[in-house]
């Protein structure tokens, strides 16, 4: 059993392993940002009307000049430099989670300010807003409209981005009714066949 008395190399090995662990723990940093909301909660916030600001409301906020409402511009700095809402803060989308941006956003959050995110399109604003919502910035709202809409009341190109259905059912009808009568009957029936497919999908998925 004399091998049990030789402990020098063993001690070195154990200390080396312990050192690796200690160095690992010392250099370990908690990630700067973490999800604060579960996907389910984040999803429920998407349909929360209180977290949306439409164009009229945004124009109202600008008029009132409420100090508690801060506009966050997530467009690129060039667009921001060309034209932006007065007092808006520019945080380009890609820099949203940078250290400096987080510091700024956190300080605004602590001051109890409500942040309204706007972008080139509502889709751009939505991405930034969802990111902030999920990482714990609850006091954020998104502008459900594009930046260009804020200036003019009716901008047709801007309306293109909104979620209102713009399907010209009349055009669809003329398209199908131009064909013989039989076809008009066929088209709805064809559409019906789409629906069972959907039912079947959920069945297949549930398996």
């Amino acid at each position, binding site marked *: 059993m004399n091998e049990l008395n030789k402990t020098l190399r063993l001690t070195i090995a154990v200390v080396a392993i312990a050192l690796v662990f200690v160095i*690992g723990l010392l250099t*370990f940093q908690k990630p700067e940002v973490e999800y604060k909301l579960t996907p389910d909660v984040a999803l429920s916030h998407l349909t929360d009307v209180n977290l949306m600001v439409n164009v009229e409301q945004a124009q109202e906020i600008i008029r009132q000049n409420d100090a508690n409402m801060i506009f966050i511009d997530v467009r690129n700095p060039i667009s921001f430099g060309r034209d932006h809402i007065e007092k808006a803060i520019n945080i380009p989308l890609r820099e949203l989670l940078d250290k400096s941006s987080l510091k700024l956003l956190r300080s605004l959050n602590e001051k109890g300010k409500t942040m309204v995110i706007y972008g080139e399109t509502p889709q751009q604003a939505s991405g930034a807003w969802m990111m902030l919502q999920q990482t714990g910035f609850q006091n954020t709202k998104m502008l459900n409209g594009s930046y260009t809409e804020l200036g003019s009341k009716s901008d047709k190109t801007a309306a293109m981005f909104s979620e209102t259905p713009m399907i010209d059912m009349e055009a669809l009808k003329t398209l199908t009714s131009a064909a013989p009568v039989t076809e008009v009957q066929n088209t709805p029936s064809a559409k019906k066949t789409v629906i069972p497919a959907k039912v079947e999908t959920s069945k297949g998925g549930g398996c």
Partner: protein
Amino acid sequence: MTGPLIPMGVIPETWNNVIALIIGIGFGFALEASGFSSSRKIMGTFFGYDFVVLRVFFTAAITAMSGIIYFDFMGWMDASMLYINPYYVSSAITGGLVMGAGFALGGFCPGTSFCGVAIGKIDAMIFSAGLFVGIFIFSEIYPLFEKMYNSGNLGGAMIYDMLGLSKGVFAFLLIIVAIGMFYAATFVEKKVKKVDY
């Protein structure tokens, strides 16, 4: 660089066999240098004259376990991607009991027998040959065992989940129990009459 490296695609699959060879060399060296190539030294654990198996086995398990847990915590490794052998209740226990009998008779387990082969132990060679025959016999009479082999599948179950403990608590208890066993082993070794081998 987060591990496991091959499943993460850091190292291409083609390196697999080279890595296997290198790891095998380390494995074989560690076993042989600790004395696992000698069946009488191995059997000392069961008669109390030499607890080398207990010491090596538990130290190895604890080292690897702590490494995995620490690396997982520090984000250097994704422990959820590690392969967990599925737990089939009855076949694991029966297989373990049969292996125990084989251990007591042969004095080797497969890994150590290959070490014995490497240094020219004839009994280890015979043991390995028996291993081949045993696996061949099992495969031939597999239909007899089929039901037991496939019954009671609990999947990749974790022991701490089964005991209702957290991973950290179980790992800590394992370390404490192992240290206790090491001290007990030293104590027993002093009491038991030395066997010359």
